């Protein structure tokens, strides 16, 4: 089959760009370890409390080492459970100092949800039976809106929280 000379140049240029893109993505994924979140760890969606991280007393933020935090969250229609404060009120805001490394761990008790800390790279699907995890460094100060970005029912847009990064 005949290919026009210019078409050959065009296709070689196009395919070379694709290969370059893939090399960059592949390098970031396999050498730098930045895959999209996938931990393939399962959980019984009807009994998430059986898992240590999702016991009611372990929800919310915990400092595990100097500058290292874990945030455990249970999602359900239409709420993120960040645990309770000392007075027994539901926490709606997670506060972390700037520059800390934060591991977000989340699962759902009912339907599929999303978990995005808008303005950061934290963006995960949350599916019944699976645990979603993403670790990141919170480099910028400010208030970041946490949104459920995966449809979970008619109250979907009322499912939110806040992450506050302070100096």
């Amino acid at each position, binding site marked *: 089959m005949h*290919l026009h000379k210019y078409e050959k140049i065009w296709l070689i240029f196009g395919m070379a760009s694709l290969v370059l*893109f893939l090399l960059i993505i592949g390098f*970031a*994924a396999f050498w730098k370890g930045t895959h999209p979140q996938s931990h393939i760890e*399962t959980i019984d969606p009807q009994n998430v409390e059986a898992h240590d991280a999702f016991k009611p007393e372990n929800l919310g933020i915990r400092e595990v080492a100097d500058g290292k935090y874990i945030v455990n969250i249970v999602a359900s229609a239409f709420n993120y459970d960040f645990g309770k404060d000392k007075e027994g009120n539901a926490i709606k805001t997670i506060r972390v100092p700037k520059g800390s490394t934060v591991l977000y761990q989340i699962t759902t008790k009912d339907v599929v949800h999303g978990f*995005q800390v808008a303005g950061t790279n934290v*963006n*995960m699907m949350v599916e019944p039976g699976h645990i979603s995890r993403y670790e990141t460094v919170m480099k910028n100060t400010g208030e970041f809106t946490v949104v459920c970005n995966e449809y979970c029912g008619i109250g979907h847009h009322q499912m939110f929280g806040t992450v506050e990064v302070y100096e």
Partner: protein
Amino acid sequence: MATNQLPLAKKDARLYMAFMYVTYTALLVGGLMGLLQTLARSGKYTLPFNINYYTILTVHGVILGLVLTTFFIIGFQFSLMEKTVGISDKQRKVAWLSFWVMVTGTIMAAITILIGEASVLYTFYAPLRAHPAFYFGLAFVIIGSWIAAFVNFRQLYVWKKAHKGQKSPLLAFMVTINMLMWFIATIGVATSVIIQFIPWSLGYAETINVLLSRTLFWYFGHPLVYFWLLPAYMAWYAIIPKIIGGKLFSDPLARLAFILLLLFSIPVGFHHQLTEPGIDPTWKFIQVVLTFMVIIPSLMTAFSIFATFEITGRKKGYKSLFGWFKKLPWKDVRFLAPFIGMAAFIPGGAGGIVNASHQMNALVHNTIWITGHFHLTAATTVILTFFGITYWLVPHLTGRRLTPRLNKLGIIQTFVWTVGMTIMSGAMHIQGLLGGPRRSNFSEYAGGEQVATWINYQIAQTVGGTILFIGILLMVYIFIQLTFFAPRGVEEFPIAEEEKNAEPTPKILENWYLWIGITIALILFAYTIPVFDILKHSPPGSPPFDWPIGRG
């Protein structure tokens, strides 16, 4: 070609027009839902009669993404098959059966959605449970489309038997590729609907495997978008050249592009599931690589089209570097509308590469950037090309003419669409990059600066959406004119021919066993191990949830 001038027999035209009536009804209903969504999301307007936002969102997605596209494509493809390989009385009868099965399914699904029993969006979202009639309805739409596919296969088969040793007509070949891809892809969603959703929604199965249902859906979900795109490519390769007074660029290259699209459209569904927790990242990456392969035939298409433009212009004697470009028939809406569609595919395709880029997907996943993306690709590239086809196909079928006045209206329509979509899709892209979520009713969340910025872009989307709705009203008006009121006459069915000295098409391009074999091999390669993993590492299944979507 003389046969292209000949009007079709009434009984045939009636069949193809039936598909067009559903298409344009869907456009009006689905478009109205889109307008209501952008109004609701501005925060300045509440939906009347207590209508739920997510009900109209489901209607919008199902009616435009599944109904409009499938009906237009199948009707258009039937007309292409008749013009190239013919249709028999028996085939026509079965084609009508496919139409009625699809209509039945559409009505079932539509009623279930409208009474609020299926606000699950068109991607299903297990373990949210819709009324079983919703799943049955969608199953009927798919089965109806299969009947159409097998009529198309039969049409080509009968022609081949009568024309031993000849290559099949290009458009018939392309239709067959598209329906093959559709059939292989819909097996996934049909399996999920029949084996998982229906028994579970009826209560025969207690739980559902959510990740498996999503994987089967997206095995279908990506080829679905190529099923929309390929008919547009058919028009670009084999119809537009005729409209601008040129010839086919290359028959073998067009066929090769379609074969590559068949091979690489299906084994790529994971790029819609990149941020899901239960799939091995290495397999995600493998499907990302395969996704990038499907860009190659689109690069070939871009080259062929612009080469056709230039060759045609130079033959007409335009010598300067871009003289041929200036002299393209810009005032012919049959050319202009698809051309804008092609132009929109440049940013649309580039955005698609971003979306499929493994870890980079986390930046945009489930944000309204994605909605902006497919309003460029599906709702501009594909739809403007379908409009471009409508301007000659409908009068050809109804024995009328595209008058200069309607042509002018069409040009206005194209501009209205371009302006409206630039505003709406542009605002969606930017809001998405700032983290604004998709599939969401108006919300101020916890307030703050971020949310205030999002709402500004949502107001811009309302402006764009309103302009687009004016475009829809115009298009429906043009359709009604072309169907019932335009003056009687003959409108050409433009099919481009090959150059007299065109090189022969290699026989291997029509070796169906080979290409279907490779398609299946690629699917097995991309899916066997990860699906086995998904089944082996299944968590306990999910019981159904009715209340989150407002079911009693």
